[in-house]
């Protein structure tokens, strides 16, 4: 296996990245890179700033200092959107739309990975038979699975997954691991926050441990 990072710039890199809320630092200057085919596991206690970091990377929050590079180029938030898919605490599902309808809309918004369809993705995340169920009628874990289907359909090479394992059963945890594995095999990258209670996916993994900046 040749290491693409030897020939090419990292897929995602943070250089001296820091964030502050009301002038109070939330996380200090961070430097890390994530190569294609690699996962970055972000660990840290409750309140360490994991969610905040992912939101800064996604472009939802503006960093206090430092820069974010995609494929070696520093980019502003709008330009980064093509490269990133974000799974946050909010599911982005319309309660009154069916599960499949929700996916179709999100595909219209974010684009679609070649060779994938919303219907097939529902099967992959184990929601076959729930196509027409309204999002409001899904249980906590089923909603999470639907969000995972959205990520799966996204054409973006870098996944930002905030606690993807929460609310999932063992089968669901296995599903996330398989998804990440397949994505990395195709040359993508994934940033995953987790509390370490779950087995990390069996892929090339770096770790980033966050601590509260006080």
């Amino acid at each position: 296996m040749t290491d693409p990072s030897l020939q090419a710039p990292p897929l995602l890199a943070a250089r001296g990245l820091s964030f502050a809320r009301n002038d109070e630092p939330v996380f200090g200057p961070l430097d890390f890179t994530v190569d294609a085919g690699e996962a970055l596991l972000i660990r840290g206690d409750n309140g360490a700033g994991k969610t905040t970091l992912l939101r800064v990377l996604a472009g939802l929050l503006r960093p206090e200092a430092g820069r974010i590079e995609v494929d070696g180029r520093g980019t502003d938030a709008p330009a980064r959107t093509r490269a990133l898919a974000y799974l946050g605490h909010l599911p982005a599902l319309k309660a009154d739309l069916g599960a499949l309808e929700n996916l179709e809309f999100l595909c219209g918004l974010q684009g679609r990975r070649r060779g994938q369809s919303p219907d097939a993705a529902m099967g992959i995340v184990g929601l076959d038979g729930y196509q027409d169920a309204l999002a409001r009628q899904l249980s906590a874990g089923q909603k999470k699975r639907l969000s995972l289907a959205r990520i799966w359909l996204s054409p973006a090479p870098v996944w930002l997954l905030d606690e993807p394992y929460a609310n999932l059963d063992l089968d669901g945890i296995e599903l996330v691991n398989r998804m990440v594995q397949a994505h990395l095999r195709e040359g993508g990258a994934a940033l995953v926050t987790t509390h370490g209670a779950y087995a990390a996916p069996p892929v090339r993994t770096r770790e980033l441990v966050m601590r509260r900046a006080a």
Partner: protein
Amino acid sequence: MNLVVRWFHQLGSPPYFDRFAARWAPWCFGLGVLVMLWGGWQGLFVVPADYQQGDSFRILYIHVPSAWMSMFIFALMAFYSAIALIWRIKLCEILAMACAPIGAAFTVITLATGSIWGKPMWGTWWEWDPRLTSELILLFLYLGVIGLYQAIDDRRNAARAAGLLAIVGVALLPVIRYSVTWWNSLHQGQTIRMFGESSMDASMIPPLVAIVLGTKLWFLGSLLLRARADNLEREAGKDWVRQRAGIDTAAERAP
């Protein structure tokens, strides 16, 4: 424009601004009060009574300067907000938001003095006249800016959102100014010119100029003070603030 930005950048260091504001605010207040006192004394006791309105016209010396201030401050607030939004200068956010309560106060004074004056002149406290109405709406805009600033948690985001509203609201200023010409209005038309020919008796002008100048200085003083307070609040906990407050940082960290 670059000059302005550079100046704000230089001034924008929180400790530097704190010192700057602390030094200049008292001067502004002192000078402003002196000038206003002279103007007020002239206006109330020296200038002869109006041949039409008798003594009631003297309220003009409060009404007109505060009316001008209410509009001037809004424009200034929008100006600061624009700089803050474009160049992300924190000091400008602070200054813009410090403008709002002062401007709202001047607007209230304008409305109140106008109402008081309106009773003898028009026989009613209030009339839905374009200028009166647009001034009332200016008050609402001020309240909206203040309300929005307080409703958002993150101080910087709050200042940016409220600043955006201020910029949108600038469109109201020409309406207030020209409402008397565009519509037929109860309110007096353009009668006073600070420079050049005025359709007002010349003896009435100097006290007015003094009070206009005085309110500007007073405003500058309270702007600096408010901005300084906001600045200190945001920076609370930083070393320089503790030092200035006389808290020995080293001693506190030792145990």
